[in-house]
């Protein structure tokens, strides 16, 4: 039997007041491909089709999803369908009244990013003054009774704050803190030499995480998203291509993950032209790497293929030049040297390189380059 999706990430808009240099949005987010955003009715239809297809978990993300004036309507529709809804937000200028309205509409869970443990670093990474709004919003979510996830993308310039970040989440009464080491796609790949940490930084942060997990138990769940360039084997990306997960982008293109749109050798379909179940079951992008028939060696004969599914197709495309290759992060990949070289370059550098902020003007320049 074909797998059915459990998760839908709805990227409602790519507009965002923050400018984080590791943003997972496409480099050309401000270009013509993503311009014509889905309407309220179109999103509601997508949610209905997703539920009928098997989706149970809905992430409302972006860009900044609270920029959509119809967010309450979308949450209400999703809640009525029985979807578990998570708002994934920067909390920029997010008021208690807006959150209360979202609660009334049926929102289940709020995830708020933070870029550092103090205002100075958080605002510097975000490229926008936003720390105070975030702290205020954390308190509002608790006062309104939402489960709260604090989300932090980790990189060279904030890894030293892991302990302070965990203590912050603890003091806020959060359920979870997601410590997500930067995965190198989109803007993060563009800024890779500036963002990649050293091995020593990662080792120290991991020691802190283990110690804090032992101290906190079930009071605060600490999620540690592995820095895959520094691992021996690839991540089981999305739990396998087109097995459980799909992303709908602001203008309706449907991707097997939120980075897949960069794979130029795949054809992506749009919810404006096809029903979601057809896209999931029959479209080129979803069929191409489903299962294991596509796998080359060393994956094909590897006992780990049912655990890691050959790793990440996007990484194979972006680093090794072909989405049908083994994830180059794997130590058995003939392209692992490309990962090792990127890691070694950072280890050699005395100081972190400068990054490019994620912003519309830079995006339009990159979109024009293609």
């Amino acid at each position, binding site marked *: 039997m074909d797998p059915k999706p459990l998760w839908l990430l709805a990227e409602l808009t790519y507009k965002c007041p923050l400018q984080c240099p590791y943003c997972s949005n496409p480099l050309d987010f401000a270009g013509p491909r993503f311009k014509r955003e889905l309407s309220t009715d179109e999103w509601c239809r997508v949610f209905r089709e997703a539920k009928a297809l098997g989706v149970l978990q809905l992430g409302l993300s972006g860009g900044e999803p609270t920029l959509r004036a119809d967010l309450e309507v979308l949450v209400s529709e999703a809640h009525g369908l029985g979807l*578990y809804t998570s708002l994934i937000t920067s909390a920029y200028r997010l008021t208690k009244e807006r959150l209360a309205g979202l609660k009334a509409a049926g929102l289940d869970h709020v995830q708020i990013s933070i870029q550092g443990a103090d205002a100075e670093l958080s605002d510097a990474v975000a490229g926008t003054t936003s720390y105070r709004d975030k702290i205020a919003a954390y308190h509002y979510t608790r006062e309104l009774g939402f489960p709260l996830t604090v989300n932090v993308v980790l990189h060279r310039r904030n890894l030293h704050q892991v302990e302070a970040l965990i203590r912050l989440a603890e003091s806020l009464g959060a359920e979870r803190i997601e410590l997500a080491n930067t995965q190198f796609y989109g803007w993060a790949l563009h800024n890779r030499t500036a963002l990649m940490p050293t091995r020593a930084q990662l080792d120290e942060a991991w020691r802190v995480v283990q110690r804090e997990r032992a101290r906190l138990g079930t009071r605060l769940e600490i999620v540690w998203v592995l820095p895959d360039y520094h691992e021996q084997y690839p991540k089981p990306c999305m739990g396998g291509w087109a097995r459980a997960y799909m992303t709908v982008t602001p203008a309706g293109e449907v991707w097997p993950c939120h980075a897949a749109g960069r794979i130029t050798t795949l054809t992506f379909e749009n919810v404006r032209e096809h029903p979601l179940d057809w896209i999931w079951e029959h479209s080129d992008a979803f069929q191409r790497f489903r299962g294991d028939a596509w796998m080359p060696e060393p994956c094909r004969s590897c006992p780990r293929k049912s655990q890691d599914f050959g790793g990440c197709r996007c990484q194979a495309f972006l680093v090794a030049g072909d989405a049908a290759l083994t994830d180059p992060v794997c130590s058995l990949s003939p392209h692992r040297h490309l990962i090792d070289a990127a890691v070694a370059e950072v280890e050699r550098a005395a100081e972190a390189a400068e990054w490019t902020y994620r912003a519309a003007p830079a995006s339009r320049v990159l979109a024009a380059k293609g």
Partner: protein
Amino acid sequence: MTAAGRATVPRLHPKARLQHDDVRGRDVLLYPEGLVALNPTGAEILGLCDGVRSVADVVAALEQRYGAPGEGVERDVTAFLDGLAAKGLVTYGS
């Protein structure tokens, strides 16, 4: 508390929600960034955890429904609830 005593009152954590999964014909427990698929017995146990019944009451209700008293039911109920408590999805109060 993360282990069920007979007199403790198990409650579903507010972050978790029971939901029927029409497509797969089963009940699931949904929570932030995750889900647990439930078998019919698990769904029934959670359905009885109303914030009033103690573990002993839940066991008694099940025994009455199925006319199968004995240590087995209590062992299964506490093991199931403790498993969810370890994930922070069930809490025990008084």
